[in-house]
């Protein structure tokens, strides 16, 4: 099965590479259509159409993929792709 690649997105304060990886996990977790445009400022719910059930799956997928723990209380603040990516970047295990 071929994996869909997320179009490169840039212009954000966080590393483009990580942003693309997070966007890819969001797209896969919520099974977003391949043509759904994703920007750093894209709001997960309002712009990407992710519902409350999907949001739980997105957070779980990001936790599994990046090895970070997302506190339930923080989820309400992670409204955009950029906010989510920044959150992940701050908690990535140091190599």
């Amino acid at each position, binding site marked *: 099965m071929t994996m869909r690649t997320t179009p490169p997105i840039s212009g954000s304060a966080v590393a483009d590479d990580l942003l693309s990886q997070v966007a890819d996990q969001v797209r896969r977790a919520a*099974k977003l*259509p391949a043509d759904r445009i994703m920007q750093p400022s894209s709001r997960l719910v309002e712009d990407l159409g992710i519902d409350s*059930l*999907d949001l*739980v*799956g997105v957070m*779980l997928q990001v*936790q*599994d993929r990046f090895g970070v*723990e997302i506190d339930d209380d923080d989820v309400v603040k992670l409204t955009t792709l950029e906010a989510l990516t920044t959150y992940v970047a701050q908690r990535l295990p140091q190599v």
Partner: protein
Amino acid sequence: MDNGRLDFRPAPVDPGHREPEDLERPQDWGGGPLMGDQAGRGQGGRVFVVGLGAVTCLGSTLEETWAGLIAGRSGLKRHESMPRDRFLQDIAGVVETFQPGPAEMIGEAAKLEVRSIHFALEAAREAWRDAGLHERQTPSRDGFDPDRVGVLVGSALGGMDLFENEVAKAAKRTTLAVSPYLIPGLIINQEAGQIARQLGVFGPGFAPANACASGGHAVALGGMMIRAGEIDLALCGASESALTPMIVNGFATMKALYAGKPGDRAESDPSQASRPFSGDRAGFVLAEGAGMIVLASETAVERMGLRPHAELLAWAVNSDGHHMAMPHGARIEACLRTALDRSGLEPEAIGHYNAHGTSTKVNDRVETQAIKAVFGSAVSNLAVASIKGALGHALGAASAIEAAVAVRSLSQGIVPPTLNYQPDPELDLDFVPHQARRIDLSAVMSASFGFGGTNNALIFGRIAS
């Protein structure tokens, strides 16, 4: 047929037919019987099969499955995906060619990583197309009413694949969180829910969870609901994919699964592991798949111009009240006899019996005895075949697939063979060994029996051309 029941001739206009004078019609309806006219009266109308679909290890459509069956092909083999360090048996009937549709096509179902749900959707779409119906068809003057379409689709075990995958993922997490799709994917009625969503139909939904009899129970339930006037159309069937370590090893441990002795003929040819009614039968081979049948009321057939493949003449469903897993001959016999009695046919009228025939020692013996008791001397002209020799045992889906194949046998006049058959002196019926056979059939019976002591028998009659 001499009793006239099988002579179906579409009657476009039949004024006065079951039409109470005092029933008000919408002004713009255009005359003719309304689909809802039968509601609640339960007057015993006729029920027709108008659509068929299947996904099996022989192909992702009923056509491919049928072609494989009558050519005597087997879909059973060893699978590297079932390594012996995790699975007690690696011979299985896997649907290898299947890919779920993309999210753009199947919508939210893409989030549910449950193979049985995707098989169910695929087979349902095939059966719906075969019936000449369209997805999200709007209510129409010809009588299609989405509120009067039932979806009766079950499964024995549901989303075991999702469950085991999620257990493995959870074991690696530092938190106790699990996928939000776990519960929606596990509930057995999600197959029916996704089919209703995909097809745009909004009548009653039920999910018979009756082990290996689930699909046949669904067809019987559809017949009951149409005859009771609850619905006009019923999409009936079952879907199964439970080829997981826990389920394979569970069946193996209870000695239901094929387990050959050293030197067994399946060692060199795994396709010989499933051998219903054979003297050396040694358990069933687990498989996955789905089967679907669209049933329609006589009024729906007439009003919508549907093309019936067969008539569902009779059904019977009963319980053993006996044992958690062992079949009960007397109750199976009673089930077959009840269906036959209800059909109004003499035993001689049934030319083919599509057997449960699992390839276990007990089932095949008990089923043979029940057939002989019910059919009496007519058994000498009864072609008994089990397609589990080719397809393995897809649990709940098996009986739906078998019912669909039995209807195809009836309309084509061909009985698929019982593969890998070697005689058993105790089981002396005509098991149609090795090769398909042309038989002019006017009626067929398909029966199935499930753990928990639950049985069904369905009788289909040919449509006079």
